[in-house]
C-alpha cells in the first residue's frame, strides 16, 4: 500500500491507500425516490487558485487587485489583461510548447516544478494543486502533462484552453464526509483526478442590452479542476432546497472548507458542473446529463433536484433519457437543454503538449505522503510540518506541539479575539465576519489551530 512503483506508462505514482468502492463504504440506507429510483451524482469542480500570478503568463491574477470590481474603470481593468491572455500574436507560452528538442536537465533543481526547458520557480499554482491533491489523499504524479483543448468561444481568447486532461497532476483521492459535514450517513466520494488548467474570460450578458461584453481579466488564471466519481446519491427534498442533506452540496462544501484551510481560493470563485443520472436499485447506471453554469451552491442543489425529477418523469413515462448538456433556469425551476450529444464539440485535443515535472527536495516526500493521516482532516500547519519532513501521524503532531482542537464557532471566536488582543503588535489585519469569512482572515493572524468544520 505504501509502495512506490512505476506504472505502466513509466510514471512514478505514489500510492498511499487503497480506495474502496463507495458502495461498500456507504452502508447507509439507500435514499430512494418513489421507492425505486436512486439519483447518482458526480461533480466537476473548477476552483480558482489563489495565486498572485496567472498560470502561464507573468501577469497578476485577477484576485490580487484590491477594490470593487463594479467600480473599477476600464483602464485599470485592462491592466490585468496580459498580452498572453489577449493572445496577441505571437505569444510563446511561458510554460512551453510542442518542442522540437527536449532539453535534459544537466543539473537537478531543488524543490521546483519544471516544465520542459523552463522552470516555473515555485509556482504557487502548482504548489497549491499539490497540496490539495495531498489533502484529498490522491496520488500525486511527479510527471504530468498539459494538453490543448480547442473550441471557439468569445471568452476563450486563444481558441484553445491549456488543461491537463490525459495526464493530470493527480489521480485518485477521497473526500470523506461524515455526519458533521451535514450528510445523513458517512460517505466517501472518490475523486477521479485533479488537474491544472487555465481559466477563460467572463462573458457579461446583462450590462449592455443586446451586447455581450467579455472580461478577459480572468483569462489565464490557474484553475484546479477536481473531477469526482459518481459516488454521491441524493434525495429529492421536499420544497426543493435541501442544502444540508445533499451529499453533493456537502462535497462541494467540504472542498470549499479545505480550500480555506490551506489558504486557498476564496468563496465564490468556484464553479461546478454536475453529472446526474437516475437508475433503479441494482440496475446499471442510467444515462447521465451534465448540468453546467451553476454559479452557487444553492443553485447546484436546486438544479440537481430539478434534473432528477425530470429524469424520473421521463423514465416513468417509458421514455429514454438522452445524453445532453443542460443548464438550469432559476425562474422556472427547470433544466433546459444547452446542447445534445450530436452537437457536442470535438475538442481536437493536442495531447501531451509539454510535461510538468515535480522534484522533491528530499527523498522523504514519498514517506511523508505514505505516512499521512488517513482519517479526518489535516490542518494546514500540520500538513506543512509533515511536508517539511515530519512523518508522524497528525494527531501526534498536534499533541506534541500543544495545539488545541477548536470545534465550535463561539469558542473559535473567543480564541481569535484572545489571540488578537494578546498579540496586537503582530496582527496586521483581522476582521471578523459572522459567516463564511470568519476563519479566513483568522488564518492569517493565528499560527496554529485545527480548522473546524464550521464553514458552510
Amino acid at each position: 500500500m505504501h509502495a512506490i512503483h512505476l506504472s505502466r506508462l513509466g510514471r512514478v505514482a505514489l500510492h498511499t491507500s487503497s480506495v474502496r468502492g463507495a458502495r461498500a463504504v456507504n452502508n447507509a440506507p439507500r435514499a430512494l425516490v418513489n421507492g425505486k429510483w436512486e439519483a447518482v451524482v458526480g461533480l466537476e469542480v473548477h476552483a480558482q487558485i489563489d495565486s498572485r500570478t496567472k498560470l502561464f503568463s507573468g501577469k497578476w491574477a485577477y484576485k490580487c487587485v484590491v477594490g470593487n470590481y463594479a467600480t473599477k474603470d476600464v483602464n485599470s481593468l485592462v491592466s490585468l489583461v496580459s498580452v498572453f491572455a489577449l493572445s496577441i500574436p505571437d505569444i510563446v507560452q511561458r510554460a512551453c510548447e510542442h518542442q522540437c528538442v527536449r532539453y535534459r536537465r544537466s543539473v537537478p533543481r531543488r524543490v521546483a516544478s519544471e516544465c520542459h526547458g523552463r522552470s516555473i520557480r515555485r509556482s504557487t499554482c502548482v504548489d497549491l494543486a499539490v497540496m490539495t491533491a495531498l489533502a484529498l489523499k490522491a496520488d500525486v504524479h511527479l510527471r504530468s502533462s498539459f494538453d490543448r483543448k480547442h473550441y471557439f468561444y468569445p471568452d476563450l481568447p486563444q481558441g484553445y484552453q491549456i488543461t491537463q486532461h490525459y495526464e493530470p497532476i493527480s489521480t485518485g483521492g477521497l473526500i470523506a464526509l461524515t455526519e458533521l459535514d451535514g450528510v445523513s450517513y458517512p460517505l466517501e466520494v472518490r475523486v477521479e483526478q485533479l488537474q491544472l488548467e487555465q481559466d477563460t474570460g467572463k462573458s457579461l450578458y446583462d450590462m449592455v442590452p443586446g451586447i455581450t461584453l467579455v472580461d478577459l481579466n480572468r483569462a489565464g488564471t490557474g484553475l484546479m479542476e477536481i473531477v469526482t466519481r459518481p459516488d454521491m446519491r441524493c434525495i429529492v427534498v421536499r420544497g426543493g432546497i435541501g442544502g444540508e442533506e445533499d451529499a453533493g452540496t456537502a462535497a462541494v462544501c467540504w472542498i470549499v472548507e479545505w480550500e480555506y484551510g490551506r489558504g486557498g481560493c476564496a468563496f465564490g470563485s468556484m464553479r461546478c458542473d454536475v453529472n446526474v443520472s437516475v437508475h433503479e436499485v441494482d440496475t446499471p447506471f442510467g444515462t447521465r446529463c451534465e448540468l453546467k453554469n451553476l454559479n452557487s451552491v444553492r443553485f447546484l442543489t436546486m438544479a440537481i433536484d430539478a434534473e432528477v425529477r425530470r429524469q424520473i418523469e421521463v423514465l416513468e413515462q417509458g421514455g429514454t433519457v438522452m445524453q445532453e448538456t443542460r443548464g438550469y433556469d432559476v425562474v422556472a425551476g427547470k433544466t433546459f437543454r444547452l446542447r445534445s450529444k450530436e452537437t457536442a464539440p470535438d475538442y481536437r485535443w493536442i495531447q501531451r503538449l509539454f510535461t510538468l515535472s515535480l522534484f522533491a527536495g528530499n527523498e522523504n516526500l514519498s514517506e511523508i505522503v505514505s505516512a499521512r493521516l488517513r482519517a479526518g482532516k489535516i490542518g494546514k500547519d500540520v500538513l506543512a510540518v509533515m511536508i517539511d519532513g515530519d512523518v508522524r501521524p497528525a494527531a501526534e503532531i498536534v499533541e506534541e506541539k500543544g495545539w488545541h482542537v477548536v470545534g465550535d464557532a463561539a469558542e473559535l471566536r473567543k480564541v481569535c479575539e484572545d489571540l488578537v488582543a494578546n498579540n496586537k503588535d503582530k496582527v496586521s489585519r483581522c476582521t471578523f465576519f459572522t459567516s463564511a469569512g470568519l476563519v479566513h482572515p483568522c488564518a492569517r493572524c493565528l499560527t496554529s489551530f485545527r480548522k473546524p468544520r464550521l464553514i458552510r
Partner: protein
Amino acid sequence: MHPFRLSRAASSLSPLFHFDSSIHHRAERAVRQQNLDPNHRAIPMPILDTRARPTLCTTTTPWWPRRQSLTDDGKMVGDFHRRYILVTDTFFLLSLGNQLSSLDGVPVAVKDNFCTTRISSSCGSAILKDFTSPYDATVVHLLRKARAVVMGKTNLDEFGMGSANIYSTFGPVYNPHDLGKGQGLGSPSERRVAGGSSGGSAAAVASGMCFAALGSDTGGSVRLPASYCGIVGFKPSYGRCSRWGLIAYANSLDTVGLLARTVRDAEIVYDIISEHDDRDPTSMPIDIRKHVDAITPGFESITGDLEDLTGLRIGIPQEYFVSELAPAIVQLWRDGIAHLRDRGATIVPVSMPNTRHALSAYYVLASAEASSNLARFDGLRYGHRSDKGSFKNDTLPYADTRTEGFGPEVRRRIILGTYVLTAGSYKNYFLQAQKVRRLVQEDFDHVFLFPNPVHHHPLPTDTSSGVHVLLTPAAISTAPKLQDCFPSADETSNAKNPVDAYVGDVMTVPASLAGIPAIVVPFGASPLDGYPIGLQLMAQYGDERTLLRVAATLERR
C-alpha cells in the same frame, strides 16, 4: 551583385517593404550624436568594406522625400506603405563615426511575422492588416539594442505558409534576378518567384536593399528563397534564437533564420540575435548552451587555413537523389562535392531511410499546429472583423471573419490541420507523424559523428562512418516561374494542384523536423536559365561552428 536601380522601375515592382517613417528622425539624431572622428573606431569593422556600402548608398538617387515633407503622425506610413525605399547617404555618414557594435547603423530588414512596435505586423495576411504589436520581438529588440536600423518589414507568404511567396495579401514577391537580365518586368509569363515564405527578405538582401534580413524557417522558409535568390540562408538549431515575438505558425518547427549575402555577414547577425530569452520557454537555456558548446568540438583544420578541409567528413545522403531533382541541380551538387574533396575533405555516402516520409510528417504536424495557433484570430480583440454580422449566429460566429481574413493556402492548411486533430484521425495521422518525426531525428543521429547533445538517450554513433556535415541541394529546381505556381484553367501552367507545390520543400524539411542547424550557400547558376542554385549543409544539433566553417569554404567558389 547588381546594384539596384530605382527610377521608374520602383512603382511597378512587387511590394517588399513596410516603410518605417521614424528611420529618418533616428538617423539624423544618431548622426548628431556621433563622434565623427574616423580615428575613434571601437571595433574593426570588416562589414563596412566596399562590398557593403556602394550597393546601399552611392549608386542610386534617394527616392525618399526630404524631411520637411514627413509628418509625424504616421501618415507617411500609410502613404508609402509597401513601396520600395532606399537608404540615403545618412547611413554613409553613420559609418564614419564610432561603431558601438558590429551592427551599428547597419540596415536590416525584418520579416513581417515578427512583432514590432513602430511598424505594423501583418504576417502577409488580411486578418492582421493594420495590427501594430504592443511589444517588440526579442530578436528585433536585440538588433535595435545593437543599433542596427530596422528598415522595414518584408513581404512573406501568409503566416509563413508557402514555398514561393505567392500567397500574400500584398501580392507575390518577384525574384530580383529578373531585373539583372534586362528583361524588366514586362512579361508576366517570364517572372520568377523569390521563394517562400521569406521571399521578401531574400529579395531585399539579394537586391542590395539591406545588409541582412531576418526570416523564419519552419520547413525551409529561409533556405529555399536563399537558394532561389542566390544568397546565404542560415537556420540555426531550434532554440538558439528566441521566438518571443515571432507569430507562431508551428511552435515545434519555427526557427528564426537569417538571410545575408555572405556567410560572414550571417555570422555577424547570428552572434547578435542568438541569446537565451527567458520569455521563450523553448529557448535553449544558458547552461545547456554551455554544455552543448563544450561537447561539440566542431571542426578545425590543423593548418587553420580556410581552404584546408583535411579531416572533415562530409556525408552525401543517398535518399536525397529524388526523381524530381533537375539535372542542373544534380550537376551542381556534384561540383560542390568535387570542390570540397579538392580541399581535402572525405566524402562519405550515407543512408537515411526515413527521409521519404519526412515531407508528409511535416505537413501533418505543421498543419495541425497551425490550426491550433491560428485559432486565436477571431477578430474580436484585434485584426479584421467581418461586417456581415455573423456574430448573431451562435454556431458560426467567426466563420465570415476568418474566411475573409485568411488567404487560400492558410485556409487549406487550417482545415487540413483541424482534420488530423479530430478524434477519429488523431491516432492515424498526428500520432503517426510524431513517430515518423522521431525516426527522422534518429536518422540524423545515426549519421553524425557526434551524439546529439540534448537527447535523453543519445544513440551510439558509428565513428568509422560518422560525418561532420551533410551536403545536399537546397531545392529541386531553380526559381520557378510565377505562372507555374498557380494552377490555371487554360493549360498554360505546369501546376496541377496546390499540394504539388509541397514537393519543393523535400530537401529542407528533414532538417526542420530534427531541429538541426542548416545553411544554404549560393554555388552557381543553372546553365539553362541562369538562375542561382544553392547547396545546403546540415550539421548536428548545436554544431553551428562546424557548419559556418564549412559553409565559408563552400562559398569561395
